[in-house]
């Protein structure tokens, strides 16, 4: 297949948190609001001239200083974000919106404050207290916090209009991104998909890390380009897989999987598109902010929710993805020391293969894993076993007429 027109440009944008589009938006008077968790409603950070930047730490090297402050036994993502902040990589931020969804990232955000890491006089940091259950009183608590700690603070410090009309405008723009990503993502259900998992991962990250208004024209063009993209005659993969797990912003991980013979057809990881790129439906008769907050609470697939129904719902969700995207197996990936996915991965990967009969592999990984030869071996062995099972299944079907 020919490379997508904007792919190289997108890859380049992902090399820095403070990328060219972020710089352009800032130069045009935009307010950059950083966040790291799905439970911070992204759409709220795109009101008025604000724009959301989901924080990553591309090209992470040594994390020694962050390890000094945080200890060895915390996830690499939280340490990489702190290390990058200490290096001055987030000085462009005007605010950081944090939640105590997990204690690791909570500690990272604390250090932004304790070490006064962002050199910007107006910079502010807020913490949201996250509920563990979805009930009337917890939703009310969450909505109140988002109003007081996010919207009111944006107005107070930067004079941002956060009226219902402004929220609806942000929802409209957000929904267009979601529609385009869904349209593009649906190609992954094809027998021989016209988009690779790597390309889709790049597109997905771009929508999180760049100002929406600047990325939308290129995204529209990419969706249009894909409608007529010519496929290679021969399939370039041996098995299709769904990747499920914790925070994942390293497209090289997807590239590693695909270099080993698999095609990633669906992604259910933090800051992927499932959930993340579903449209937010607004009923004009109900409170706008409450509906936005409910959307994020209800669609979250984070294993911090430990009630029986939520645990079961997450397993069913993965199984549904396997069926819908015609996948041959599931790969559970877990960022080492992720406090929630450690449990989820161990149990769900067992249940998925033993109770649901879906071939499953489980890997724990570092924040950046592209250079890992061992990881490549694991993935390749999994792909080989999927391929063989597929061949055996086809052979059996043939024998049975």
């Amino acid at each position, binding site marked *: 297949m020919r490379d997508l027109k904007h792919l190289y440009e997108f890859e380049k944008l992902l090399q820095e948190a403070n990328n060219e589009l972020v710089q352009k938006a800032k130069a045009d008077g935009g307010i950059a609001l950083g966040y790291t968790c799905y439970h911070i409603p992204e759409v709220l950070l795109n009101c008025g001239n604000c724009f959301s930047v989901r924080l990553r730490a591309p090209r992470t090297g040594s994390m020694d200083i962050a390890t000094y402050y945080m200890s060895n036994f915390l996830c690499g993502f939280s340490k990489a974000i702190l290390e990058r902040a200490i290096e001055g990589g987030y000085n462009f931020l005007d605010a950081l919106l944090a939640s105590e969804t997990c204690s690791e990232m909570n500690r990272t955000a604390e250090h932004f404050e304790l070490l006064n890491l962002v050199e910007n006089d107006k910079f502010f940091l807020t913490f949201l207290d996250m509920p563990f259950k979805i009930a009337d009183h917890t939703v009310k608590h969450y909505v109140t916090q988002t109003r007081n700690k996010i919207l009111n603070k944006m107005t107070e410090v930067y004079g941002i209009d956060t009226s219902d009309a402004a929220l609806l405008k942000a929802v409209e723009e957000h929904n267009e991104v979601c529609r385009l990503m869904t349209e593009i993502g649906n190609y992954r259900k094809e027998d021989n998909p016209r988009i690779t998992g790597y390309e889709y991962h790049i597109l997905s990250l771009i929508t999180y890390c760049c100002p929406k208004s600047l990325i939308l024209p290129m995204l529209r063009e990419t969706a249009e380009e894909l409608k007529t993209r010519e496929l290679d005659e021969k399939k370039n993969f041996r098995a299709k897989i769904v990747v499920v797990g914790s925070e994942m912003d390293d497209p090289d991980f997807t590239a590693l999987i695909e270099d080993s013979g698999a095609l990633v057809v669906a992604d259910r990881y933090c800051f992927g598109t499932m959930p993340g790129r579903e449209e937010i439906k607004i009923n004009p008769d109900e409170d706008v902010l409450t509906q936005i907050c409910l959307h994020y609470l209800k669609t979250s697939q984070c294993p911090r929710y430990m009630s029986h129904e939520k645990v079961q719902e997450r397993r069913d969700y993965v199984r549904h993805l396997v069926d819908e995207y015609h996948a041959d197996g599931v790969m559970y990936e877990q960022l080492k020391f992720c406090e929630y996915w450690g449990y989820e991965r161990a149990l769900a990967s067992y249940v998925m293969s033993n109770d649901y009969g879906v071939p499953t592999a489980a890997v724990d990984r570092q924040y950046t894993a592209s250079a890992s030869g061992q990881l490549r071996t*694991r993935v390749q*062995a999994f792909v*080989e076993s999927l391929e063989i099972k597929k061949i055996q299944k086809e052979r059996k079907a043939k024998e049975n007429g």
Partner: protein
Amino acid sequence: MKYFGGCDVGSTYTKCVILDENGKMVANVTNRSKINPVASAEIALGDAVAQVSGLNSAEELSYLIGTGYGRNKVPFADENISEISCHAMGVHVTNPEVKAIIDIGGQDVKGISIDTDGTVKNFAMNDKCAAGTGRFYEAMANAFEMTLPEFSKLSLNAKNTIPITAQCTVFAESEVISLVGEGKPMDEIAAGIQLAVAKRCFVMAKKAGATDSITLTGGCAKNDGLKKAIEKVLKIKVFELSTDPQLMGALGAAEYARQKGLAK
């Protein structure tokens, strides 16, 4: 006669096996790996080809498969297959009764369970550090100022086991040197080292679903002290293979090459 090759470029040793179309092993080579995997593969292939009178170069092999960490660097290879799949197939063709493997290579430890057709049923892999791998044993043998074969037999007659607490290769080496300095019996320290590695292997074997009929592959399979410790920890008799266990990856690759080459 058609010939089929498997080349296992490992981090420490490069192995090569050539099979004829009936599956008979007609050549095998085990060389110390070079820093450059292409050079390692070229030398091993050259040495193996020299053992077969009907072959002049690796290009004449009907099908060649690369495996091991340098699997995608094997010249003239038709494809590469992970060493996990190859070890399973290698053991299966050597002894179909064996249903599980502990493969201890130069830089990782793997537990593999085998399906009835020689394919991988499940696997687990310790790839986080050199603890319990060939590199670890090299460091330990150095600390004892012994060769690897000497060290592997040292623990066999130990009356007691002195536990080693450090798993990290570097820390374990320091701990061993301290224990030797304290005048502790060397065979008992060695028994402690073997027990520590055997426990690590236990975890990999159990994670992979190994229940019985297990064997050891990789260079460390020749370590008698480790074999005894694993039998003690797993409470299972470890199968002896009729072919050099270090060759299992290359043999599996060659068998895959034979099956694929004949089906071409």
